[in-house]
C-alpha cells in the first residue's frame, strides 16, 4: 500500500486547529472552551487506544476476541442510545431494549454481507468485522436514539389522543401505529439522504480512507456502496424493533398508557 504516514509531531500540529476553535469560542464568549478541550483530548485518547486494540485484534485473528469487541461496542451503543431519551422509563430499562434492537439490526446488516458479498474467511475476521461493524453500529445507535426519543416524546405530548383511541377500542398497537410509523420514517431519513447524495455532496469516510491508503477508487466505491446499503438495512431493522419495544414499554398489563416524568437533559 502507498500512503503518506502522519508523524506524531505533525498530528500535534493538527491540534492547532482545535486551538483555533477554542480561541474563537473565547473571543465570541460561546463558553465552549472546556467542551472543546475535553472533546479533543477524549477523541485522541479513544482513537489512539482503539488503534492499539485493533493492532492486537488483527494480529491475533481470534474470532472470540472479535466477538467480544463487537459485544462491547454494541453495549456502549445501546447505553448511549438509551441515556439520550428524555421521556421514557429511564436508561436502565431502555438499555437492554436498545441492545436487542441494535443487535438484531447489526446481525441482519452485517452477517450476510460478510458471508456472501465480501466473502471474507474467517467470517468474523477482525480487519473487516470491526470497522464495518462499527459503522453499522453507529447508524443503528443513532436510529434507535431517534426512534426511542420520538416515540416517547410523542406519547408524552399526545397522550390524550392515544387514550382517546384506546377509549374507542383500539389496541395499543392500533393506537400507536401512526406515531411509530412517523418515528421510524424520521429516523431513516438521514440514511436515505446519505444514499441519495452519495458522491454528489459527500465522499464517505470509508471510501476516502481506502483511496488515501492506495486502493483503486473503482474498488473503493464498491465497498462504500455495500456499506451504504448496510446502513439503510440496520436503520430499518433497528428502527422498527426500537419502535415496537418503545410501544411495549409505554403500556401496562392492562393496556393502559403509562406516564413517565421527563429525565434531566444529558
Amino acid at each position, binding site marked *: 500500500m502507498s500512503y503518506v504516514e502522519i508523524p506524531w509531531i505533525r498530528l500535534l500540529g493538527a491540534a492547532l486547529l482545535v486551538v483555533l476553535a477554542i480561541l474563537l469560542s473565547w473571543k465570541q464568549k460561546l463558553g465552549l472552551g472546556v467542551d472543546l478541550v475535553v472533546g479533543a483530548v477524549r477523541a485522541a485518547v479513544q482513537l489512539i487506544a482503539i488503534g492499539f486494540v485493533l493492532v492486537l485484534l488483527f494480529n491475533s485473528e481470534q474470532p472470540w476476541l472479535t466477538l467480544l469487541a463487537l459485544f462491547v461496542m454494541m453495549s456502549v451503543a445501546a447505553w448511549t442510545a438509551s441515556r439520550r431519551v428524555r421521556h421514557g422509563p429511564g436508561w436502565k430499562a431502555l438499555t437492554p431494549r436498545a441492545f436487542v434492537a441494535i443487535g438484531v439490526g447489526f446481525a441482519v446488516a452485517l452477517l450476510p454481507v460478510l458471508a456472501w458479498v465480501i466473502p471474507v474467511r474467517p467470517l468474523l475476521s477482525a480487519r473487516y468485522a470491526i470497522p464495518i461493524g462499527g459503522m453499522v453500529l453507529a447508524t443503528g445507535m443513532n436510529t434507535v436514539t431517534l426512534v426511542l426519543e420520538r416515540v416517547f416524546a410523542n406519547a408524552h405530548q*399526545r397522550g*390524550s*389522543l392515544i*387514550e*382517546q*383511541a*384506546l*377509549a*374507542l*377500542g*383500539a*389496541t395499543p398497537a*392500533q393506537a400507536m401505529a*401512526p406515531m411509530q410509523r412517523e418515528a421510524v420514517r424520521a429516523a431513516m431519513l438521514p440514511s436515505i439522504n446519505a444514499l441519495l447524495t452519495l458522491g454528489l455532496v459527500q465522499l464517505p469516510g470509508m471510501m476516502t480512507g481506502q483511496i488515501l491508503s492506495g486502493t483503486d477508487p473503482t474498488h473503493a466505491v464498491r465497498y462504500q456502496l455495500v456499506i451504504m446499503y448496510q446502513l439503510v438495512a440496520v436503520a430499518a431493522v433497528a428502527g422498527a424493533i426500537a419502535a415496537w419495544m418503545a410501544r411495549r414499554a409505554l403500556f*401496562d398489563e*392492562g*393496556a*393502559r*398508557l403509562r406516564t413517565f416524568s421527563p429525565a434531566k437533559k444529558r
Partner: protein
Amino acid sequence: MHEQRLQVRGMTVRRAERRVVDNVDLDVARGQIVSVSGPSGCGKSTLLRGLARLEPASGSVLLDGSDAASIPFADYRRRVSLVFQESPMFEGTVADNIRFGPALRGESLDDERVRDLLRSLSLEPDMAVRDAHELSGGERQRVALARAIANDPDVLLLDEPTSALDPAATDEVLAQIARVAERGLSVVAVLHVEAQARVLSDTRYRMKSGRLELEAA
C-alpha cells in the same frame, strides 16, 4: 326492572396514598341514565376512567353478567365507551373521526349514517367533510359524542358532555342522549348542572371525596 348491564362492586382507584375513588358500588341497567355530580376534584372523572378501564382500579366489574377481567381490554372499551370532556380529534375529516371506531374492527360506516349521526346532534351534515381540527369546542364535543355512538357501545360514559355548548345545543345533546338510552344504551354521565341531571337521569348520585352517595332514584 331492567336487566343489569354494569355492576360495580368496591371500585377503588388510588393515586399515591390517596383514594381518589373510594369503594364505589354502582349498578347501571340496560337503557338507564345515571348521573354523577359533585365538586371539582371529588373523583368523578377518575370514576369514569376506572369504569373504562383506563385507570388501574381494584374491585369488580360485571358487564352483562361477565367479569370484565375476562373481556379483552379493546373489546371492553368498545362496549363501555368513554367520551372525555375535552375529546381530541384524530387527523382527517369529521367523517374520518366518526368512522374511527368501526374502522378499527375493519368495518365501515356509509355516508348516510355519518350524516344521520351529525344531524341527530344538531350539526350540519355537510360538516362531515370538514377538517376535524378546525372545529369549535362545542362542535368538537358533539362530534366526539357522535364518534362514540357510531362505535355501537353498550354503555356510554360521558364526562361533562355539555360543558362547551350553548343552551340550544345543550338541549339537543341531552335529547339525543335520552333517545339512545331509549334504544337500550346505558349512560353514566358526569353533569355539573343540577337541573340537567334532574331532567336527564333516572338515578342521580353525588360524589364526595371519592365516595358515591345516592341522591335520587
